[in-house]
């Protein structure tokens, strides 16, 4: 009796396989989109998260570096460094630039920083070293993989020839990747030697950050001063308000398609087996028993599809990351469990939709 749900599903192997395939694809889509979401979310702000600055000083009304402009002059930088409690004030200049390799052109988020302080440089090097001279450049790992750059290769950047001296990670913001050069080189590119996007401030040990922050504010009322946590949150908020909600929307559409596919299968199954259900009803089956059969079928398909999706997902991610290195996907156990729970929930919903058909199966059908 307990096998009814399984056997009726197995009686149409092709349909079952197609359904599991369709549902699995939806689950893979959800896994993938949420993994990309996490990868982008982490990658976009990893540079800020790992930065050792206590304070971030930007132009007034600038809240982040992802989608906003900020210009801070050398004179302002000089005044920041003179504020009591400030140990170091390091300028960083962010520019959108292009790198050419043969026929291929790639856009980068060029980050000019002072090699002496190291503040604003690559958060983590996976190969080579950090920049030391104006001829050095550090590329993001995914960018380097995509354009097949390795340490020692020459790089053509807006008419200048640099050399790759290091490969970094935590610098892939999905739509664009960071590249690191000296501040002097970056300034030379734009032709304004004293400009910076922001100043990264480290404060004297033992000095309260809030106090120094307030002093910088008072000394330079035309600038914004953020502590590390606030600035990170600003950038996370900015990143989340961008295209990332779109990923959630597409993932949600995947969940809806999954529900529709399952509902269709369950409904067809009920209609094809309506005589069985009519017999069960006539023999005195409680409605809950019939509901249980449909719910069991929905959960069986959801479970089989989840297993199939997991089997496909990880090799698929590896393949995609190979073909498109800038796609950074990150999954966690919690994320996978969460999606499997959503799938279970959607399968329950689909069974509830299909269960409505049971109401239109009548006793008299067994006497026809």
């Amino acid at each position, binding site marked *: *009796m307990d096998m009814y749900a399984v056997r009726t599903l197995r009686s149409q192997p092709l349909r079952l396989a197609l359904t599991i395939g369709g549902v699995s694809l939806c689950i893979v889509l959800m896994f993938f989109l949420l993994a990309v979401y996490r990868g982008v979310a982490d990658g976009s702000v990893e540079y800020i998260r790992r930065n050792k600055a206590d304070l971030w000083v930007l132009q007034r009304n600038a809240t982040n570096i992802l989608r906003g402009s900020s210009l801070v002059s050398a004179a302002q930088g000089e005044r920041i460094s003179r504020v009591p409690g400030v140990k170091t004030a390091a300028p960083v200049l962010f520019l959108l630039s292009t790198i050419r390799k043969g026929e291929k052109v790639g856009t980068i988020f060029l980050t000019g920083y002072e090699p002496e302080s190291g503040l604003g440089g690559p958060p983590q090097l996976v190969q080579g070293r950090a920049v030391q001279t104006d001829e050095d450049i550090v590329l993001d790992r995914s960018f380097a993989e995509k354009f097949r750059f390795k340490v020692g290769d020459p790089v053509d950047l807006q008419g200048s020839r640099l050399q790759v001296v290091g490969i970094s990670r935590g610098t892939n913001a999905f739509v664009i990747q960071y590249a690191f050069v000296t501040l002097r080189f970056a300034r030379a590119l734009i032709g304004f030697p004293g400009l910076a996007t922001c100043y990264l401030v480290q404060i004297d040990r033992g000095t309260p950050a809030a106090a120094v922050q307030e002093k910088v504010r008072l000394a330079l009322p035309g600038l914004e001063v953020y502590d590390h946590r606030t600035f990170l949150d600003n950038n996370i908020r900015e990143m989340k308000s961008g295209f990332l909600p779109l990923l959630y929307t597409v993932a949600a559409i995947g969940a809806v398609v999954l529900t529709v596919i399952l509902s269709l299968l369950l409904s067809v199954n009920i209609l094809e087996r309506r005589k*069985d259900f009519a017999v*069960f009803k*006539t*023999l*005195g089956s*409680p409605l809950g028993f019939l509901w249980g059969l449909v719910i069991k079928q929905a959960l069986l398909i959801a479970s089989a599809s989840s297993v199939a999706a997991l089997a496909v997902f990880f090799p698929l991610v590896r393949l995609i990351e190979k073909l498109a290195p800038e796609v950074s996907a990150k999954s966690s156990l919690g994320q996978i469990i969460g999606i499997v729970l959503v799938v279970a929930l959607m399968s329950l919903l689909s069974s509830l939709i299909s269960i409505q058909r049971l109401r239109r199966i009548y006793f*008299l059908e*067994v*006497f026809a």
Partner: protein
Amino acid sequence: MNSHGPRPPIAGLAHVTKTFNGHDHRTTAVRDVSFEAFAGELILLLGPSGSGKTTLLTLIAGLSRPTAGTVSLFGRDIERFSAKELQRLRAEKIGFIFQTFLLIDSLTARENIEAVLRFNGTGRSARRTKAAALLRRLQIEYLAGRFPRTMSQGEKQRVAVARAMANDAELIIADEPTGSLETKQGLGIIRILHALAKEGNKCVIVASHDLRLAEFTDRVIRLEDGRMTS
């Protein structure tokens, strides 16, 4: 109506009429039918196709409600049963045998029998024991693990009878139980039903157009165009 002394009837119909409303017409399948059925009786509802036999069976089983008149089951008007009560009544007190057996194809013979026991709340191990006993009683133990598609018509009908007996029903409803069987097998089934009525003290109501069954029954109710003619 028959009188059976102080015994209450298992099923009682009083001036029952059943009309079906179509889009542009009404069909009266049963007209002013009255009779009572008692424990230990084997009653044959006899009539040609379309005479209202099956409709009458559904009324007796509480599967549909009369347009006029009253149907009582186990001493209570079915109008006073809730849907839930009727479901439990069918699970606990009524057994069904259908014309085309209607065994569940995806279940083995044993599981088909166990289904009824599950519906009346029998525990798992008791279900197994009872199903095995019924298969033994009907001499079809060898069918226990087989699916209906591998059975002959006669074997299917025996499993269907075993299923109808599973819940120790006081009322057994059989719709053309011999309709799909050869004469010898049909007679075998009617003998089983007769034994159920007489030895098991069950009330067995059989609908059929097969006149040969009349000699095995206690009472024949003839139907024609929905009316009782005898």
